[in-house]
């Protein structure tokens, strides 16, 4: 069980994973790294144009507008989702009657496809004849229909959908983390006379530290990348109010039915892809740095 034989054994087990990752995960990145310096529309000979794509990018107001929208979208989603799912996890990790049923209910949205749900929300949040407005009007809560998918509220509706789909998922991850905390710590704390809040602050949070850090980091990257439900719900409209950066990027490669450019732009799209990845990477790094600092303070 040592030496070269074990090395070869291990490599045979890693090889399928590595080969698939290299071909379908790594190669496309290098493809983009090459074509971001080219003028390439998917046909004809790609033309090397140096940094022209990036020059265009920095002047592309639509793109930077979509970056701002992404921050609002991701921030709005996380600020509600993370605390709410953490509280639910703590509550449902205790002995509570009906907790299995509640867990199942909260987790249910996450098993339903984001694009399917976007269709449902598209129908029920419709401003003229959507069920949400009809029920609110019928109950006398509002006096005139709210234009949920209009310029004013569309981004908020998108955030509501994102929160709806995410809570159960992060609750589950938090519960998995909580179950790794030894029960005796809480018993010892009870004997020492610690109350529930004290236990939360002095045992749960520090013991959950690395798991918490990982889950939040995952949540940040996932919410910055998400654009499926927006694509189905509004396609970035009206007037680009819900355009997030990854959706903007998608349209450069696969132009959609309404709005925007209808020409594929692989070269410029690659430059946009590279830049969005850098933006997400920077935010992740900043978070990592800050949360590490916070850990040191503990």
């Amino acid at each position, binding site marked *: 069980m040592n030496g070269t034989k074990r090395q070869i054994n291990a490599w045979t087990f890693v090889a399928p994973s590595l080969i698939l990752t290299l*071909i379908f995960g790594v190669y496309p990145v290098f493809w983009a790294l090459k074509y971001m310096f080219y003028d390439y529309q998917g046909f004809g000979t790609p033309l090397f144009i140096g940094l022209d794509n990036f020059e265009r990018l920095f002047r592309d107001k639509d793109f930077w507008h979509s970056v701002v929208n992404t921050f609002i979208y991701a921030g709005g989603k996380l600020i509600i989702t993370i605390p709410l799912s953490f509280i639910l996890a703590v509550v449902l990790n205790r002995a509570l009657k009906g907790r299995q049923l509640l867990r199942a209910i909260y987790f249910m949205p996450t*098993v339903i496809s984001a694009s399917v749900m976007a269709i449902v929300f598209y129908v*029920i949040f419709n401003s003229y004849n959507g069920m949400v407005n*009809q029920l609110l009007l019928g109950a006398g809560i509002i006096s005139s229909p709210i234009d949920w998918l209009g310029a004013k509220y569309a981004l908020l509706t998108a955030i509501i959908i994102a929160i709806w789909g995410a809570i159960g998922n992060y609750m589950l991850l938090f519960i998995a983390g909580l179950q790794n905390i030894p029960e005796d710590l809480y018993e010892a704390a009870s004997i020492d006379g610690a109350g529930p809040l004290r236990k939360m602050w002095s045992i749960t949070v520090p013991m959950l530290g690395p798991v918490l850090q990982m889950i939040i980091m995952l949540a940040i990257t996932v919410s910055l990348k998400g654009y499926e439900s927006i694509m*189905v719900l509004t396609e970035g409209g009206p007037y680009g109010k819900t355009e997030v950066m990854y959706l903007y990027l998608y349209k450069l490669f696969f132009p959609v039915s309404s709005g925007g450019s209808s020409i594929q732009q692989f070269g410029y799209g690659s430059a946009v892809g590279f830049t969005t990845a850098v933006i997400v990477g920077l935010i992740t790094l900043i978070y990592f740095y800050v949360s590490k600092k916070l850990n040191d303070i503990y």
Partner: protein
Amino acid sequence: MSTLQADTKITSSPASTIKSKALLSRVLLWIFLLLVAGFALFPIILAFFGSLKSNLELTTGTTLLPKEWKFENFTQAWTSANFARFTWNSMFISTFTTIGTLLIGTMAAYAVARVDFYGKRVYVVIQSCTLFISIGAVVLRPQFDLMVALNLQKSLWGVIIILISAHATAFFMLIGFVRAIPKELDEAAFIDGCNFYSVYFRVILPLLTPALGVTALWTFRGAWNEYILPLVFTMTQPALQTLTVGLAGLKYGVGDAAQPQLMLAGACLSMLPMIIVYIFANKSFMQMTAGSVKG
């Protein structure tokens, strides 16, 4: 305010106030829990009742329950909107993606967790890079070209292979679970005559079973929810479209005016198999909570 009252009362009759305070916090807790439950369920409930209304009632009615139950919405979606085909395609993709991901993920996780092989660090760095670096839809273009080269662009296998290739999340979930299995068990098996491969099949996989349930749930759900990838691969091939792609396609209508009641019926058809799968996968999740994680 309430705490202040409670504090003053404590001096008079401690036992009863503690009791009523506990009752109050219980009631508040349950109101909170039920509100969240309502939030989680309202779109599903609205979609269900809406799918049974007529077009006219859906667009003008103000009641939750349909006045006239139109079950034919479902048969119409199933037959004329081709949902039978979409369901099969979704099942096919999700099942094989899950099997492939679990196989490749557990193998890699086992090797990484147990052997210090040459190049391990590089491998793990590559995997975590694919997890955190995302250039979004850009990758779909070269991926599509690769599938054209492999002549798989007109088959569901192209989508499945790409979904399996994105197994970094499953890999990192599984590596934690493998590490939780005591190394002494491997060593004992080696002494009993097992080799690298039989330890994987006889020790690691059986002990991973609860964790596999969780990872399978995660992977299956991911493949089922996938919209962009199958959309790009099946834009021009309706027969290969999945539920997500087919349903979103209803939004653009087929010549007719928008038919919201059909969209909701289609959405319910898309949710139903997943909810059934969820009930089963949910059980394996409960198994995990029961014990293995503490390992």
